[in-house]
């Protein structure tokens, strides 16, 4: 290969090498680790046995955890669509002067630290939080409502974190639609609602899909939000992984749980990729 032809590969090699060494190899290693043997003395010995996997498959607790995690992620995604689509539509289509400023404002909370944004919901929903202070102040209730440390507060925290992803994806998609198509639908006798349903909505599906996939995957993979805002009965899969690895130091079993998480989310992504394009999702990060 001549020097000029080799140049792009040379420029790419640090990125490819570091990703291969620090991401691909470790993930493959986790798969291998899930077959290792944990001895009675708590030592992990390289082996090829199915004990860890048998433990996983024989205990329905872990399936329940996976189910409850995916359910919460799905609800979070649905709430993001309901809150985000109309807002993105408004930002893209309304005749407003400060569109740039409004878009900028939507992404400001994005920059605020994740842990602070999650923590802020304790201040909002807590016993002496903002919502209860207002409700008791105007006399709606004498006793504070229990709004925190349950599935509701987990979903609020997750939605709060994911919503900007949804809005930017839908907004970009709506913004890219040729307005003449909508005008044509109107001229040909569609009502505004019909023109939205038959033209605008289908054409914005790539953005809606990308936003939804991101919401789902990021919500299902989150550890800190359910940990801080969830109750004692909140069951979240990433939390089980953390417990196995850091608290119980049972690495082979933690490896099993990690592989399960990766495969489960990989299946969701594969199904998505069957119908939509993953490159839309990747591109949305660059904006």
């Amino acid at each position, binding site marked *: 290969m001549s020097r000029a032809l080799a140049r792009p590969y040379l420029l790419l090699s*640090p990125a490819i090498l570091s990703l291969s060494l620090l991401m691909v190899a470790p*993930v493959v290693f986790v798969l291998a680790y899930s077959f290792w043997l944990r001895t009675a003395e708590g030592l992990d010995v390289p082996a090829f046995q199915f004990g860890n996997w048998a433990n996983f498959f024989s205990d329905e607790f872990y399936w329940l955890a996976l189910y409850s995690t995916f359910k919460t992620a799905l609800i979070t995604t649905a709430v993001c669509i309901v809150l985000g689509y109309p807002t993105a539509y408004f930002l893209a289509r309304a005749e407003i002067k400060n569109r740039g400023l409004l878009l900028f404002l939507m992404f400001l909370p994005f920059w605020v630290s994740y842990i602070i944004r999650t923590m802020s919901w304790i201040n909002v929903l807590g016993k002496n939080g903002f919502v209860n202070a207002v409700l008791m102040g105007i006399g709606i209730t004498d006793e504070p409502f229990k709004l925190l440390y349950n599935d509701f507060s987990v979903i609020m925290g997750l939605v709060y974190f994911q919503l900007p992803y949804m809005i930017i994806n839908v907004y970009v998609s709506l913004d890219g639609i040729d307005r003449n198509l909508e005008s044509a639908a109107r001229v040909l006798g569609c009502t505004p609602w019909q023109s939205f349903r038959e033209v605008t909505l289908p054409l914005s599906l790539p953005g809606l899909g990308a936003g939804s996939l991101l919401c789902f995957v990021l919500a299902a993979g989150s550890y800190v939000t359910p940990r801080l805002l969830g109750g004692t009965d909140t069951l979240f899969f990433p939390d089980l992984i953390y417990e196995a690895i850091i608290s119980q130091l049972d690495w082979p079993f933690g*490896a099993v749980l990690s592989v399960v998480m990766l495969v489960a989310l990989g299946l969701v992504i594969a199904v998505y990729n069957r119908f939509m394009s993953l490159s839309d999702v990747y591109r949305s*990060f660059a904006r």
Partner: protein
Amino acid sequence: MSMAAARQPGEGRIGWALLRLWSIAVYLFMFAPIVVVILLAFNSSRSGAFPMEGFSLQWFGKLFANQSIVDAFKTSLILAGTSGALATVIGIMAALALVRYSFKGKEGIQTFLSLPLLMPEVVMGVALLMFLKFISMPRSFAVLLLGHTILSLPYVVLVVQARLVGLRASYEEAAWTLGANRLQTFFEVTLPLISPAIVGGFLFAATLSFDNITATLFWKKPGIETVPTKIFAMLRTSISPEINALGAVMIVITILLPLIGGYMVRRFAKTK
């Protein structure tokens, strides 16, 4: 606007009014929690919650007197600076290759480099922890540095790529034609042209690192805290006015930093 032309006068007014109300509600939803944190940071009450009892700056004072928080800030800043610089150098090289050259396997490499974006952070945390332990590298600052670099690399590649698209090869060709060698061309032409992308990529990567918590919890040595893990640990006992003050400081830093960065990039671009 073509939309307006197709619309009959007065039509859909209620619909737009509802949309506007909905959007205002969503904006309130986005900003109310942040405002609440800042508000409570100045509350003189000891409970760190409502009701507001009076204005006080004491919690900020307590904050800066707390050595473990100051240490966490130091760790976070060093980590963000080093991993950000590393990710930026590697990322800019990759982005340059992807934007400037056409070559075999480009699509595949692009997808490969974006793959980690959808990787659950918990799994990434577990994987790198196990792998580095296996090659005799236990939890340490070095693991955090490598891990944070890898986590922000795909973002840097994508963000820098988007900014480099407008960069035309003709400037460099002109420099060569006028007798500059490769090194001179790079330092005199290419580097000044891509420096906004470098600054942007670095700020992005540093912010991601500064903000990271989930993977950090897996990689950090017990006893070493970054700002987010410190807050996380403090929150496990209870919410205190000190945490609200820390939150307010973090909000100001994380919002101001990108704003200053963006402003500097624009100014820099203008003067050139």
